[in-house]
């Protein structure tokens, strides 16, 4: 019985290894919050959400389709924003076309925010697995 319980606990522990990674991708900094790294999570949340929000405020384009290779790369970056991407996509908030120079900056802000969020989520995973302290 105790062996079964230990095996079940080990299995659930292995599954939970990916929880900070997935949580960190969905909500910036959430992976660090799960690991009780409050300050790191808070700074990551503020930096990534502000970057994405400023990109939106600048009228940045939200990539929603992959018609060519550049769109595909932009979409990959935007998807890195997790829930922020899906919410703005379904609400139709992001611009469809870039009309002014600052909107081009905004597009890059949003893509880079997604890439930074992926970095933050992988960092949370490394903290969880013990590769980083």
């Amino acid at each position: 019985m105790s062996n079964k319980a230990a095996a079940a606990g080990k299995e659930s522990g292995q599954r939970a290894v990916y929880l900070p990674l997935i949580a960190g991708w969905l909500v910036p900094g959430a992976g660090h919050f799960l690991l009780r790294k409050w300050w790191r999570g808070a700074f990551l949340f503020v930096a990534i959400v502000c970057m994405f929000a400023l990109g939106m405020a600048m009228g940045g384009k939200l990539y929603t389709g992959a018609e060519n290779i550049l769109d595909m790369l932009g979409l990959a970056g935007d998807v890195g924003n997790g829930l922020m991407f899906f919410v703005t996509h379904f609400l139709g908030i992001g611009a469809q076309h870039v009309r002014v120079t600052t909107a081009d900056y905004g597009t890059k802000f949003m893509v880079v925010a997604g890439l930074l969020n992926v970095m933050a989520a992988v960092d949370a995973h490394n903290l969880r697995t013990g590769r980083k302290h």
Partner: protein
Amino acid sequence: MFQPSHFTAVLLFALFASTVFGITMRETPRRMFRYGAYCFALFVGSVIVFSWVMYFISP
């Protein structure tokens, strides 16, 4: 719509990117801060240098 100048956009970009770089690439708070400041200086410094280079090579 928020329409920052080129340089303001650079400063904002450098600030946010450096924050994430510092936290994810180093382990102690002191080293995080130092690495973040280093990245920020490199971002902004390289933009200023390349801006002047483009100014001098422009026809």
